[in-house]
């Protein structure tokens, strides 16, 4: 048996009367993996998901799920489930009715329906809320109803469109863990759209970073963080993002390049001993560390991380240093120069 990827997108494009859609989307998704589509708003990540779901049809390319060409299939023939950003719960139906809506449509027998409902409610911790209407639930509970509806039918593929963006920050952290656990326990394949890199990096096996309708990089969170394919990825991933430095201001490096440098690789040294001399532009205390923002005319986003509370007065000049092996190099087009 050939281990064919579970989901394949081949050169998919979608255009909206000249407006930006998506171009050249090619992607392989393995069964049981957690794939995050990440990018700023308007980058085409939601469009890609909707193409995969069958809510939009591509202008070019083909989509395969479980070895079957589903490019023009209806959404219901693709054997997938979806969690919407707004949850899309039916407001007049109770929690139980919402969850089993799809089972009823597919004429699943009553006893089987009840068993699946009980199971889905138990997994999502919604027992006791069966008869509530969505309006009577909190945001987190509604979100779990949407999850329960997505898993009740036992589809192998689940698409999630920014499912956490309507939750407050604290809840988001716990639901993030719940979703990841759910995906592992059920062994389902999840394609997850988000604009929040923390979500993507912490949950996904594979992150697809997009910009302006095109894929910038596909890789593990480690790849994206430690081997960004271009300057966009370098600046998008990580908090604080990677600093970009024009190479001519650094001694011992070939000029004409852009250098990338992570904040944790920079250290402050006594005046006169550093490789760059910068001015402190801001200081941000985060609890376990303090981020010192630096200004230099040949660099953007220079930041130093110092442990604990360690503020520096704005306007002070400090010297910094770093090792050559921690530098990422990008050519004029912003592409990573490999071999380094």
């Amino acid at each position, binding site marked *: 048996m050939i281990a064919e990827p579970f989901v394949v997108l081949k050169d998919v494009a979608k255009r909206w009367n000249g407006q930006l859609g998506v171009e050249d989307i090619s992607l392989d998704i393995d069964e049981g993996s957690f794939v995050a589509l990440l990018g700023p708003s308007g980058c085409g990540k939601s469009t890609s998901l909707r193409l995969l779901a069958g809510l939009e049809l591509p202008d070019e390319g083909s989509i395969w799920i479980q070895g079957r060409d589903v490019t023009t299939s209806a959404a*219901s023939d693709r054997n997938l*489930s979806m969690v919407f950003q707004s949850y899309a719960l039916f407001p007049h139906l109770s929690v139980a009715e919402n969850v089993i*809506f799809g089972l009823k*449509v597919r004429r699943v027998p009553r006893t089987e329906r009840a068993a699946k409902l009980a199971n889905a409610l138990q997994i999502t911790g919604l027992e006791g809320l069966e008869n509530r209407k969505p309006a009577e639930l909190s945001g987190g509970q509604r979100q779990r109803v949407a999850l329960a509806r997505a898993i009740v039918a036992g589809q192998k593929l689940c698409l999630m469109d920014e499912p956490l963006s309507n939750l407050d920050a604290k809840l988001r952290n716990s639901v993030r863990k719940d979703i990841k656990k759910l995906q592992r326990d059920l062994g389902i394949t999840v394609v997850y759209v988000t604009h929040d890199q923390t979500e993507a990096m912490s949950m996904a096996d594979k992150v697809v970073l997009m910009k302006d309708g095109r894929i910038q990089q596909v890789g593990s969170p480690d790849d994206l963080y430690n081997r960004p394919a271009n300057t966009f990825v370098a600046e998008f991933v990580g908090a604080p993002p990677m600093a970009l430095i024009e190479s001519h201001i650094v001694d011992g490096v070939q000029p004409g390049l852009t250098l990338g440098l992570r904040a944790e690789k920079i250290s402050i040294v006594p005046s006169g001993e550093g490789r760059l001399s910068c001015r402190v532009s801001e200081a941000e205390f985060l609890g376990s560390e303090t981020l010192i923002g630096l200004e230099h005319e040949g660099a953007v986003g220079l930041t130093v991380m110092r442990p604990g509370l360690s503020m520096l007065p704005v306007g002070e000049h400090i010297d910094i240093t770093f090792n050559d092996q921690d530098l990422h190099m990008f050519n004029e087009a912003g592409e990573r120069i490999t071999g380094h």
Partner: protein
Amino acid sequence: MSNHVNLERRRQAIYGWLLLSPAALMLSIFAFYPSVATFWSSLFTRNTRRKPSEFIGTENYADLFADPTFWLVVKNNLFYAGITIPVSIAIALAMALWANSKIPLRGFVRTAYFTPTVLPMIAAANLWLFFYTPGLGVLDQIGSLFGLPSVNWLGQPETALWAIIIVTIWKEAGFFMIFYLAALQTIPEDLKEAADIEGASRWTYTRRIVLPLLMPTTLFIMVNAMINSVKLIDHLFILTKGGPSDASKLILYYIWEMAFAFFDAPHAAAMTILVLAVLCIVAAIQFLYLDRRTHYQ
């Protein structure tokens, strides 16, 4: 401390009454007082020069119940309501669903459906008079193309009420459509998408999701259609005047006739009270019973 609270409460009460008073005043003058006065006058005989008015209790009502024309008119009106209400609601819903989908010339379609509503009923009735006129009318002209005989739609008892019913439906469906259209636009697009992914057909989606979500609108339209089925009689004056032989006479037309053609105000008053009572009961049932089964967002 409690002095403050009392003062504040009293001030709120004064605001409340001040805000209520214009409506309360208008309603009292033009609705409550006339209703009570009507009820009062329905208990007396007619005031003529020879016989002054005297109290007779429920005799006027007894007269009405013994009047075959009254029962014919009641039957006509029930039939009229029984056809116009469901049919105009169904047509309004169908038109709204269509005008809400992604079709070419959507703006034109919506305007076209709404046009009958902006016409005054008198103008609409004159228009339909032209359609229905035997020989000259559009219906007969079309019929003659297929060799059908001329029909006097308004002039024969079997068809007169139907002709009136069709004018009413034509007039009202577009109006009700606007309410459905507005309600349909509040249903989020992603409910349809969620239903699509679950494999629901268009019909299932309409039946299980759209119609329940439109229930508040349907209830509102039903109450309106019911009231209209009693109160909208302008077209009778133009088209049939209740004839022939009372075949198309509706209850409000009969009340008008009783009061201003036969100058029998007490009987007209009694009939008015009966209509009010029936309307109150039906509206109460609609709101108390259907309200509980309706989902409000």
